[in-house]
């Protein structure tokens, strides 16, 4: 097991882990349970590319603009973000608390001919192992961890000076209760019921406050909204439901 120099506590929520364990085979099935995530993916990848290219001063037209950057995807699931990041040139570590996710992700990457270092571990395990990264991604994960301050602390510890942290999650608003919880799980059936606990959602200001306490600078908060007519997700100024936040170390 891990050795964690910050004392007790864990970010692992066993209940959440069990829920995802049962879905591990479905990550890459475009018609399976994660279809909404595939649909959502281009918008958040677009945000990542834009932010990282800007922050690291890379050529926005390059095929592999993230070449040479070491990136960790915390809570990588089946690798839906890790693989595109590897294709854009980053050297990627993917970690997940659910063993079956790591297995599914590694199998898929091998088939796609991508070199990605997948590990079954928690953020704090990487800290304990002395790992550090230019880019830390915590996408759709803070709402599933047991201890948010501990998790964000671990994110900061993993970040190299000048590095970039991106957090994506769901806001805690009346609109998000209606759309992201009731709408997505009960009305549209996009997500298995019980995927999210609305009370655990965090407002951008709450995440920002934690990150500032960790000494990071919040650079941007952008909303991700759904356009029902075209069935597509777009980046927007509306952060009431889904949003992405970028913070940098130094």
């Amino acid at each position, binding site marked *: 097991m891990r050795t964690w120099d910050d004392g007790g506590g864990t970010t692992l929520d066993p209940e959440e882990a069990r829920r995802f364990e049962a879905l591990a085979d479905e990550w890459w099935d*475009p018609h399976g349970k994660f279809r909404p995530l*595939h649909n959502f993916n*281009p918008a958040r*990848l677009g945000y990542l590319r834009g932010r990282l290219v800007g922050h690291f001063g890379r050529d926005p037209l390059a095929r592999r603009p993230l070449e040479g950057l070491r990136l960790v995807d915390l809570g990588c699931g089946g690798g839906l973000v890790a693989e*595109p990041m590897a294709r854009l040139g980053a050297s990627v570590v993917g970690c997940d608390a659910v063993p079956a996710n790591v297995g599914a992700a590694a199998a898929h990457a091998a*088939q796609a*001919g991508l070199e990605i270092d997948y590990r079954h571990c928690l953020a704090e395990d990487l800290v304990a192992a002395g790992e550090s990264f230019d880019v830390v991604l915590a996408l759709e994960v803070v709402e599933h961890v047991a201890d948010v301050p501990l998790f964000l602390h671990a994110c900061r510890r993993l970040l190299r000076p000048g590095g970039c942290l991106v957090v994506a999650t769901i806001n805690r608003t009346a609109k998000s209760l209606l759309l992201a919880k009731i709408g997505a799980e009960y009305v549209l059936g996009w997500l298995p019921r019980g995927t999210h606990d609305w009370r655990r959602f965090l407002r951008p200001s709450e995440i920002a406050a934690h990150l500032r306490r960790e000494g990071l600078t919040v650079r941007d908060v952008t909303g991700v909204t759904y356009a029902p007519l075209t069935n597509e997700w777009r980046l927007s100024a509306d952060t009431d439901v889904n949003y992405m936040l970028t913070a940098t170390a130094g």
Partner: protein
Amino acid sequence: MPLQNEHEEVDVLIVGGGMVGLTIAAALGGAGLEVLVVDRSPPPHQTAPAFDGRASAIAYGSRLVLEGIGVWSRMAAEAEPILDIRVSDGDAPFFLHYDHRDLGEAPLGHMVENRVTRRALHDHVSELGTVRLRAPGSVTGFDRAGSRAHALLDDGTRVAASIVIAAEGKRSPTRTAAGIRVTEWTYPQTGIVCTVAHEEPHRGIAHERFLPAGPFAILPIVDADEPDADAAAAPDLPWRHRSSLVWTERNAIAPRILELERPAFDEELRRRFGDFLGAVRSVGPRWSYPLSVLIAERYVDHRLALIGDAAHAIHPIAGQGLNLGLRDVAALAEVLVDAARVGLDIGDLSVLERYQRWRRFDTMTLTMVTDGLNRLFSNDIAPVRLVRDLGLAAVNRMPPLKRLLMRHAMGTLGELPRLARGQPL
């Protein structure tokens, strides 16, 4: 024969290097993707006048696509602007009149001879470092099951690509091999195509005339630089003013018309064409095409996208076949380039389905509209004729409806890809 089989690694393999295939090659290659195009015919053959004597209407939206890709400037000098479209029912007095000034200053579209478009595309892609052309060549086998599509070419070359685009036209062997079924129906009509020379200039006016046998379209093309070869045989008729003709005829009669000697053919032509442009005569060879409609049940499969006539071949009544293909190009190029930009696997179904959703509606609408128009107009039953004449007159008097139909014909209706809005990829 190469001693050792070659192996090529590309992002995109395009099967079929016709107008649609080369346009998407230019769009994707221009955006930095590595492209290999395989076509059965060698390039000089494709741009020879005898290979394809047709001219195509390039709608306003299609012109924007070609401009965005950087090809239009290579063909603009030989593109005739369509300033006015006059639709009439035989010799009935009512007619529908589309004037480009109803929508602003831009022409409704341009008429361009296909060989001009092909030559411009060939010249353009040959200057792109990212596009290679294998012509003549063909694909003898596919394996699209894994994380890359693998193709075997007739010369033994093995190609690995993230996605295969089938742009082989109506009888796409790649579509058949993929087991994608089609819905198809035929019309008892043949399209006869030729160029005509006429005494008076056409002044940029296109005519679509609904004769009992089917539509008869007179489409303005640029004047010839010099009198054509046939002018020598007709010293009293040396004109350089030209139009492209699409003459729909019943299957039973078409072969006989096609076989006529030129004086007899020209006599049949004049009976339908009339004398509004002075005297007329046909120029060069004649082509004929059986008319049918074909729609693929789906446009995508694992690591495969159908484009242009391989996905949908519609009735040529409204001159929209190539335009639909170029709108496919704009949509598919945007979907693939956007996906590649964010690191997604461009051959993944979740990516390709976005293209299918985007193009389905436009295609189905035009297929049904052109089929309906043809069924409505290809007969000479008096009541039907009266109703449709009143209909044409009514459309003419309802500016909003007319503008809507014009916008669709111009390709500026609906949620448009960036290229079709005149924006870069």
